[in-house]
């Protein structure tokens, strides 16, 4: 029997939906206890230097302020790098909050004011005076582009002879693209609530994509092995911001340990700009092609920014070596250190900006070679990942192009820019390809069926809005032939079986595989249990002889006996299976990736330069889709992010102060409802028996990749103007 039958593949409503629409879903700052204290962080006003003195007398004098925590009075913490290195740490020496008097960036936490109410803590925080010895700082990537160094994780090695092939190519494109700093800005700000337990242990509610990552971090930094439990049943968005423990977590723990009381630290929206972000990039693309547009040479060089203490590396240029067929490729990736915090993975890290540059350059090549942009992609189609020299385990990108173009009406598009208009609205159509890796990480899951026949499945993963609760419930229900209502999936508790960070679009692939296998192991236990009763019709049957459906286990051969699972466990008692699933060996021989084709229509006001995206079609090949409704929502969300990247988002820094200027939601522009048109997400059929047993590749990142390029290409088609620097604001079009 197919263990991936319905409800896998069905567009079911989220199992956590009712909790979310009634306000019952509780997030990290929403757990309380009598006597809970509140901490407010005081951040550095300078970008580099030394703290000379922290004068907290005025704050401490307030009735109800219990502590002003600084590097001078914090509890002992680890001093070496290793304990601070979490699962998503960059190379180098991680930031150690309140470690010493050094100021490494503007916004660095320098003190935590703890009081009986949050309002009081906030007021007291405003009274803390810090004296600094300021040192000259540098926060401008452009100013240090000559001082960059090789990234610790170098891009794929060159192949062929780029220089020769580029010089000989009859059609050449050479351009530079720039992308700005962007911040994750999940709607929920980062927060940690730490309950100090009677036995000195800590129960922590944190906003995180990895409860076990935070647990290990705290155990190591504070030497509290076995005394920390981290919970995160609901996370109000993260998009990467919860991949590393953020500073509010150790600060809340320091205060709790020092005071032996429960403490909550909630960051303000402004403070959401005082840790990781998508780094600014400068990218140079050189494409050489024959007269038909077939690539002969491709070079992609990127410069990214990092902090002075860590080298943040992302896969930015790698995509250019794998998306199209090309024999002569040269990729380069360098980093320049600034007096800023370390960047952090943000939705489709690397790809969101690297593929933007590649796909804009491909559009420029299409015009240089006078080929339709979609036709150009088809002429350069590759069944092989050129970086690895391996075939793709599946790649239905061609179907994405065909179905996406069909839905969008690409065939009607005239090639020449500025050929469509309605009144003073210039209309443009652009497209781009998207690509993301199809990862799998080791993961564990436990499946337990209780004596009432209810199935509880668990793993220490997260649901940051991605639909993990629902998808895992579907996978488990399918494997045991139970209705959704009989299955409960638990996550977000560090005591549960091991799960990797929830990121990189790998959760269905990793945790989903573990859930599936755990349920299959439970099938065997159910069969064994049924065979215990004397004269059981199941005697001698193997798993191949039985099917699980409609809440029963049924013999597939005469006498076709069906036995309700409830009755089996009614006799045997609860049954449990726990498994750990490693990525399969078969994956090593193949390249694995998700792909998409994105088609965008824009309307540009000729006089005002305002750009409005009026239509988007995104066709995605991501293997088996567990829940088309929640997965479609992920793709649409990714497209919204792509529109934000293309037109709105940019964190601006005042380099004289080394400080962000627009660190709030009024001036950091996120797309709003009125910015978003109808978005159509299409999943093309793609079968993959290599990626994992489910054949699922994950959809969290692929939705954003390529969108900004498709928008930029559409803007060119509308206006005839190439904007190579994101975001495309009206000043760049006038």
């Amino acid at each position, binding site marked *: 029997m197919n263990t991936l039958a319905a409800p896998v593949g069905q567009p079911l409503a989220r199992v956590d939906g009712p909790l979310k*629409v*009634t306000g019952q879903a509780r997030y990290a700052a929403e757990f309380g206890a009598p006597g809970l204290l509140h901490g407010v962080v005081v951040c550095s006003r300078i970008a580099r230097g030394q703290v000379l003195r922290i004068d907290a007398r005025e704050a401490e004098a307030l009735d109800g302020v219990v502590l002003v925590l600084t590097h001078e009075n914090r509890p002992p913490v680890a001093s070496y790098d290793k304990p601070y290195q979490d699962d998503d740490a960059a190379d180098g020496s991680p930031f150690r909050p309140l470690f010493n008097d050094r100021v490494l960036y503007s916004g660095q936490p320098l003190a935590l004011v703890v009081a009986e109410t949050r309002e009081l803590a906030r007021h007291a925080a405003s009274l803390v005076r810090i004296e600094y010895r300021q040192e000259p700082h540098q926060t401008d990537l452009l100013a240090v582009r000559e001082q960059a160094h090789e990234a610790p994780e170098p891009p794929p090695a060159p192949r062929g002879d780029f220089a020769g092939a580029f010089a000989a190519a009859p059609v050449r494109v050479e351009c530079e693209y720039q992308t700005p700093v962007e911040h994750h800005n999940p709607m929920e700000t980062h927060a940690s609530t730490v309950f100090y337990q009677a036995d000195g242990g800590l129960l922590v509610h944190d906003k995180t994509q990895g409860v076990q990552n935070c647990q290990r971090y705290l155990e190591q930094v504070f030497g509290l092995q076995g005394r920390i439990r981290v919970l995160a049943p609901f996370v109000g968005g993260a998009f990467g911001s919860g991949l590393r423990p953020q500073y509010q977590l150790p600060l809340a723990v320091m205060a709790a340990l020092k005071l032996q009381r429960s403490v909550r630290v909630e960051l303000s929206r402004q403070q959401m700009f005082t840790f990781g972000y998508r780094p600014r990039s400068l990218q140079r693309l050189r494409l050489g092609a024959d007269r038909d547009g077939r690539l002969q040479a491709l070079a992609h060089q990127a410069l990214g920014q990092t902090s002075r203490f860590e080298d943040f590396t992302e896969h930015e240029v790698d995509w250019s070596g794998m998306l199209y067929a090309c024999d002569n490729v040269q990729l380069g990736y360098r980093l320049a250190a600034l007096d800023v915090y370390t960047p952090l993975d943000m939705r489709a890290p690397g790809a969101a900006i690297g593929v933007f540059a590649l796909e804009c350059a491909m559009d420029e090549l299409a015009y240089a070679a006078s080929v339709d942009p979609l036709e150009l992609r088809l002429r350069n189609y590759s069944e092989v990942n050129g970086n690895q020299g391996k075939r793709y385990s599946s790649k239905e990108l061609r179907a994405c192009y065909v179905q996406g173009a069909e839905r969008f009406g690409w065939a009607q598009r005239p090639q020449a820019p500025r050929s469509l208009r309605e009144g003073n609205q210039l209309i443009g159509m652009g497209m781009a390809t998207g690509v993301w890796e199809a990862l799998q990480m080791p993961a564990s899951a436990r499946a337990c069926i209780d004596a009432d026949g209810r199935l509880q499945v668990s793993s220490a993963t997260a649901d940051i809005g991605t639909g993990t609760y629902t998808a895992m419930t579907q996978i488990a229900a399918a494997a045991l032939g139970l209705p959704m209502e009989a299955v409960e999936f638990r996550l977000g508790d560090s005591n549960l079986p091991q799960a990797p960070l929830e990121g990189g679009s790998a959760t269905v692939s990793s945790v989903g595989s573990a859930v599936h296998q755990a349920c299959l192991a439970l099938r065997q236990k159910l069969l064994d249990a049924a065979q215990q009763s004397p004269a059981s019709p199941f005697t001698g049957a193997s798993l191949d002889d039985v099917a699980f459906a409609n809440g029963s286990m049924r013999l597939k051969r005469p006498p076709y006996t069906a036995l309700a699972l409830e009755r089996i466990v009614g006799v045997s008692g609860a049954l449990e299976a726990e498994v750990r699933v490693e990525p399969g060996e078969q994956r090593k021989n193949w390249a694995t990736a998700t792909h998409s084709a994105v088609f965008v229509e824009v309307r540009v006001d000729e006089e005002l330069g305002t750009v409005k995206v009026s239509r988007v079609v995104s066709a995605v090949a991501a293997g088996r889709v567990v829940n088309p409704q929640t997965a479609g929502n992920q793709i649409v969300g990714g497209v*919204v992010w792509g529109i934000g990247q293309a037109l709105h988002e940019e964190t601006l820094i005042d380099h004289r102060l080394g400080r962000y200027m627009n660190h709030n939601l*009024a001036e950091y522009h996120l797309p709003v409802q009125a910015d978003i048109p109808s978005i159509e997400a299409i999943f093309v059929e793609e079968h993959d028996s290599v990626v994992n047993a489910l054949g699922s590749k994950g959809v969290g990142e692929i939705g954003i990749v390529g969108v900004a390029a498709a928008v930029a290409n559409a803007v060119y088609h509308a206006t005839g103007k190439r904007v190579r620097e994101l975001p495309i604001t009206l000043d760049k079009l006038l």
Partner: protein
Amino acid sequence: MSQNLPAAGAPAACRILLELNGERRELEVQPWTTLLDLLRDQLGLSGTKKGCDHGQCGACTVLVDGRRINSCLSLAVMQDGAKVTTVEGLAGADGLHPMQAAFVRHDAFQCGYCTPGQICSAVGLANENRAHTRDELREQMSGNLCRCGAYPNILAAIEDALPTLRGQGGDA
């Protein structure tokens, strides 16, 4: 537990009366406490969310006498005598409010953090009866950010629930 600030002549706590989710509540609040903090911190009604505390995101939207407001921008004392409805007060004994049900049906959220604000805002919008086209709906829901980008599904949910709510003039 003291909440007094040290400044000389700091005002004392005030008594206010609210009809909160259908229940009369006599409350003691500090004059500087926002309606949002009153709900979340003092009353444990954490369904109303805080995304910015500055009137920039809409996560804190509640209904005051049927009108949608950003509760982070209102001091609790300003609402003395008002009828306040939060997301916790929308569902009736017979189940979800039509707007809540439409949000579930259309998968109009991901992480759920903006959702209570979106739903209260949409109910307020129905009471206003000003949005008649899709673009007007989009414009008039633009004070509620959704970083997850669930906008198209939010729009679909509102369009679905609106006909049953229009003109009812209620908030529950």
